[in-house]
């Protein structure tokens, strides 16, 4: 509760702060990439699923977040990254995060990468392990084909005899 209250305060501060322009609505990755010049250096809200690995780099970490259109690299403190429990891959859905941070079209600190430097984040959905069930149709098809192959093999044996 305290965390959410603090995050709301930060967002309100950033929105009404006189120095920087902030965008109060969550922006999509496509919107950010397409209009990168417009959002460059601005504070933005971006949300999506954590995918791949959380790559720790000293006191910071790279986290790639996919909003369903593209994945964007988010640079955050290692302390913030600790909140991530699940990352998206074949066997799991990653945590869904909403973050507030500064968007860079060509980041000076990171060799010209298009990225977001997160200032705060909030978990808006928990990740989970995806349980894999055996696909019945695929199993049946595979057995039918195996039967056909065996038939050819037997016919070949007869032909040789």
């Amino acid at each position: 509760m305290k965390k959410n209250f603090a995050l709301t305060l930060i967002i309100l501060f950033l929105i009404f702060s006189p120095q920087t322009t902030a965008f109060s609505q969550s922006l999509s990755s496509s919107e950010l990439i397409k209009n990168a010049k417009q959002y460059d250096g601005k504070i933005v809200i971006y949300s999506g699923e954590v995918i791949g690995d959380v790559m720790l780099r000293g006191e910071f970490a790279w986290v790639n977040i996919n909003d369903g259109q593209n994945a964007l690299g988010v640079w955050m403190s290692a302390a913030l990254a600790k909140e991530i429990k699940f990352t998206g891959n074949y066997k799991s859905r990653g945590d869904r995060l909403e973050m507030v941070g500064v968007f860079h079209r060509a980041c000076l600190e990171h060799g010209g990468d298009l990225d977001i430097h997160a200032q705060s984040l909030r978990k808006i959905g928990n990740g989970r392990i995806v349980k894999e069930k055996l696909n019945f149709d695929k199993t049946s098809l595979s057995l039918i084909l195996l039967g056909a192959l065996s038939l050819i093999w037997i016919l070949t044996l007869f032909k040789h005899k």
Partner: protein
Amino acid sequence: MILKPRLEDLKIIGFYLGKIILGLALTMAIPILIALCFGEINPALDFFISIEISVLLGLLLIKICQTDRDLNWMQGMVVISLSWVVAMMLGAIPLYLSGHYKVFLDACFETMSGFTTTGLSLVQDLDHLSYAHNLWRHLGPFIGGQGIAIIALSFLLKGTSGAFKMYVGEGRDEKLLPNVINTARFIWLISITYLIMGTLALGIAGICIGIKPINSFFHGACVFMAGFDTAGFAPQSQNILYYHSLTFEIITIVIMIVGSLNFNFHYQLWIGKRKEIFKNIESRTFFISIMLTFFIVAIGLNQLGVYPQAIALFRKGFFQLISAHTTTGYMTVYAQQFITEWGNLALFGLICAMALGGCICSTAGGIKMLRVGVICKAMKEDLKRIIMPERAIVIEKFHHIKEIFLEDKLVRSALTITLAYIVMYGLGALVGMFYGYPFLEALFESTSAAANVGLSCGITSTTMPAVLKVTYIIQMWAGRLEFMSVFTILGFLFASIEGK
């Protein structure tokens, strides 16, 4: 008089095609092993089904077309052309079964893109793709880069003179060793040695940048296979940008350059002739061409102030340029950024680099450096003829493994292939423009497909028209086989209809 192909021709073609299909089925066992290691049940089934279909088709063709006759030139070329189309369809089965492709055509596009070492992708939700399917995407370039026929030559065919025809049919005309089967095996030896070295280098770099060890070596193997074979696939949707690492990018640049060099260079280095790399017309042309095209890209980026620092400009510009010139297609920018930020001049530089391509007898596509070098030498010779007295005898030589005299036959061959590539780049752009894409974007994507590069400015997507997908598939196929096999199959079809 055009002769209609006889039943015997079809039988020979079917028999060798069957053998190649069996070779392809063999390679599908690797993703099954990976699926079992990572406990991926359904992906293992996808590959099991694909192997069964492939073995069934391969065995049927071998049994029906049983023959002990060897291939002639026409049959060899037709076998190669068809084997790439059949490999595309069979290789697409496990991908389509994964559920990550909207329609079967998209999976075919992905497979052809992989086998031809292009790297254009239509996969959906790549970040949740299984290890097994992801490995198959990257194994495709490794198989296709070395050549689908090379597998058959290395493991399934023994001592056949038809082997050489299939080897040439895959766009290679240089033998490293006197025997073509030994050449094929040597190509595998080089590739597997580099695979081990590259996977180790990328794997260790991956661990250092915070990737879990198993993932790191898996990514290392995938990125190496797609980098060395100049394909440009990556295990994550952000391509190389996913890693956010200069070290990773530098290692990838080295792999891309090594992969785009002539296998003959590797052989010369292998036997200790290191000077060859400095003397050879191809390596010299490659170096000059990289410098010139990078100059264009850098000016374009600088004019528009795309990157605030020279270091960032160099890091982004040089990576993309090397990726384009080696025809790999790895990206550290988003596809849309080429259009929204890079500007026309930088794009023009990239298109030139893509069109020129890497070295012959490598996994790279495009016109290729030896041809560019030969054409430049021919122009120099013609200029000399104009300047020098009429009675003067002008002789031009160049070094490519040995000293070679510049003959008209050589120049004509280089110009014919160059012209064919240029026409294909243009035709693809025309189809793109027909569907409403601007000229530069359509040309960029068409060149990328035909030169087997894989860089995209955003046209390649699941929503693009089916005709455009088919156009790019044909471009990738014809570009990889360097036209000869494709012309032969067209001739074969024509003879089947019109012949007597």
